[in-house]
């Protein structure tokens, strides 16, 4: 998905369609609670978990305060280990750099580990348009690539797909296999994907991975995976390209270890992911394997503009997905409704930052501010507070819908004038109370269809407002 294809302004319609999609709802209901239970158990098992969260937050804050310094140090280390760093200010620049590198490597096929930055840059479509075949090697990414979709979750990209849908996608794509084979369970599907992908590992000239962290002290990039696909992707082809955004920097290996301790636990409840892979530079003489060339594409794409704004804290994000796993809005509509690369609470803050509040402004509004995301965020990003900051920007820019502004304005006018408010409350309570006098509730109200469409409005008690009754009783 590229910048131009964001359907974020249509969030409401997207959400409605998601709620009406029975397969999607089945998938969301099926996975609901799994991540939550696992994270809770992992947290219980590690007494210092919350203290580690504080440390991780402080590490990231420190990096963001000295980002230029750490980026330079990181670049120097990559160069010293024989690698190259390419700075991309925009997604377009990153695309062009990756294409150039692929052409340099004579690539016809590119294998990919899981990388959200490549999604942000729309790498797959771009490479395909230029005659290079991208192959996703993460099982979830592979499934959605076959289905022509984008990830609906930052760590579980195919969480919206049901097992029968995966089977259908595999039967359609893997026509060289026995049509009568049994694909009825997840294990069979995994085995088939492994077999198909295994061949592709040896065909690609370039492997693209993301990075969960970049270490300034050593020039390492770090990926965490559970399938081992990332390791094969980056060590078998002759060129390894790391695509990462610049806030992924941490100062030292020890800092990386601190963050790893909260990352797996927050994401999947694992103490550590199955694979945690550090890579630096190309294969050295005597190394048994590894790429001949090692390139890092460092993407800004609007992030440096977030520094020194109310949204800077968002750059602490380590992409664990805990916020969306715990978000009741995400659980209801899934990730695609958000309409751009990053869904859930972190997407609701990041998306307007990266594509503009005019495009992304729906997302920070689509929250009940329940605060569960902030409660579980491993680096304590105040997500609801930042969504509120976006709402303020929208209000200042007059992007808030006119009806909403008028309603709020009227209400605030009265709320600032207690005597007028008293009268309005008295009249309103009286009217609603009469409307609901028979049943104690109101089933339909023309100016409040948002409420009464799917629920009744409990009517005010008879006998007047509290303030009137208090005054009458006590004076």
């Amino acid at each position, binding site marked *: 998905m590229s910048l131009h294809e964001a359907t974020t302004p249509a969030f409401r319609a997207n959400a409605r369609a998601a709620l009406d999609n029975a397969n999607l709802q089945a998938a969301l209901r099926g996975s609901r609670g799994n991540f939550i239970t696992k994270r809770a158990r992992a947290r219980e098992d590690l007494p210092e978990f919350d203290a580690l969260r504080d440390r991780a937050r402080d590490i990231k804050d420190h990096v963001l305060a000295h980002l230029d310094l750490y980026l330079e140090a990181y670049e120097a280390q990559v160069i010293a280990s024989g690698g190259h760093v390419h700075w991309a200010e925009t997604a377009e620049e990153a695309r062009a750099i990756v294409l150039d590198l692929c052409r340099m490597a004579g690539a016809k096929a590119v294998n990919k580990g899981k990388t959200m930055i490549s999604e942000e840059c729309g790498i797959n479509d771009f490479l395909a348009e230029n005659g290079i075949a991208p192959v996703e090697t993460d099982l979830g990414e592979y499934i959605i690539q076959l289905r022509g979709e984008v990830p609906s979750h930052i760590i579980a990209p195919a969480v919206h797909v049901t097992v029968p849908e995966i089977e259908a996608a595999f039967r359609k794509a893997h026509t060289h296999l026995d049509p009568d084979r049994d694909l009825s369970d997840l294990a069979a599907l995994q085995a088939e994907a492994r077999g198909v992908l295994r061949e592709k590992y040896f065909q690609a000239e370039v492997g693209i991975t993301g990075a969960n962290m970049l270490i300034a002290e050593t020039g390492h990039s770090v990926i965490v995976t559970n399938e081992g696909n990332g390791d094969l992707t980056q060590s078998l082809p002759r060129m390894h390209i790391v695509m990462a955004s610049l806030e992924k920097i941490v100062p030292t290996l020890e800092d990386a270890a601190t963050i790893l301790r909260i990352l797996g636990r927050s994401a999947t409840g694992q103490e550590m992911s199955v694979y945690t892979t550090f890579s630096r530079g190309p294969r050295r003489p005597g190394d048994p394997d590894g790429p001949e060339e090692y390139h890092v594409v460092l993407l800004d794409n609007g992030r440096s503009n977030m520094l020194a704004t109310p949204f800077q804290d968002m750059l602490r994000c380590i992409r664990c997905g805990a916020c969306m796993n715990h978000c009741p809005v995400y659980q209801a509509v899934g990730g695609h409704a958000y309409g751009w690369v990053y869904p859930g609470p972190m997407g609701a803050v990041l998306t307007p930052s990266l594509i503009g509040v005019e495009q992304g402004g729906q997302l920070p509004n*689509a929250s009940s501010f329940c*605060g569960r995301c902030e409660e579980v965020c491993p680096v304590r990003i105040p997500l609801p507070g930042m969504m509120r900051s976006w*709402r303020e920007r929208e209000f200042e820019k007059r992007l808030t819908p006119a009806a909403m502004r008028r309603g709020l304005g009227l*209400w605030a006018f009265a709320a*600032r004038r207690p005597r007028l408010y008293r009268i309005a409350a008295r009249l309103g309570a009286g009217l609603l109370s009469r409307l609901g006098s028979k049943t104690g509730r109101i089933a339909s109200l023309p100016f409040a269809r948002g*409420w009464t469409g799917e629920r009744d409005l409990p*009517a005010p*008690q008879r006998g007047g407002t509290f303030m009137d009754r208090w005054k009458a009783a006590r004076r």
Partner: protein
Amino acid sequence: MAGERNAMPERTVALFVTCLVDMFRPSVGFATVKLLEDAGCRVEVPPVQTCCGQPAWNSGDRENAKAIARQVIAAFEGYAHVVVPSGSCAATIARDYERMFEADDPWAARARALGARTHEITAFLTDVLGVTEVGQKAPVSVTYHDSCSGLRSLGIREQPRRLLASVAGLELREMAENDVCCGFGGTFCVKYPDISNVMAGDKTRNIAATGADMVLAGDLGCLMNMAGKASREGRAFRARHVVEVLAGDLATPPIGEAG
């Protein structure tokens, strides 16, 4: 309870009744007053009160939010304690007011001072007054919904449960996902009714699964949402504000029922 009352020094408490209780369910205000008076407090209701301003604040309208905050601060800062029968409105006063003003604005310090003295009712009774029992009897089974702001901004979880445990004959049956939003969320419920409705439906299903007679909570907004959804679905359980049970007011019809 009577013994404790005599031991308690007389305190004056200002009641911030909240706009929803004022308009929709004054009995919650009176139940709150009763609980406070039973605990030895003298209750005053400053007449200059409308709403805490949360709708403006959460909609990005900082100017109106600040104006309403200044009004509340001026009207309530003379009291030793401000008590609110809502975790959400209490959190707005206790946590958000200070954030509305620039650090060097004198109103910021006044907001902070008021915030430190502002309490949700069940937290005030237990944490400040040390109330351990309310001396009531209610042969009902209840389930308790933890409203989001009270739970996460103010840390209210055990307080209402401790007080409910002191009600003779009352049985608390915890529901699944009792800490998950009911879908109210202030203006969220009318801005995104489709999503809000799904969240409300999940909530009423979890409530019904306990088989409890009624759902209790500390916030009228959430309660109206849950009660309104439940009556539309034809659910059997009732909804009440927790202070009604704690104050022994089961005579008033439940939320959304005619009396």
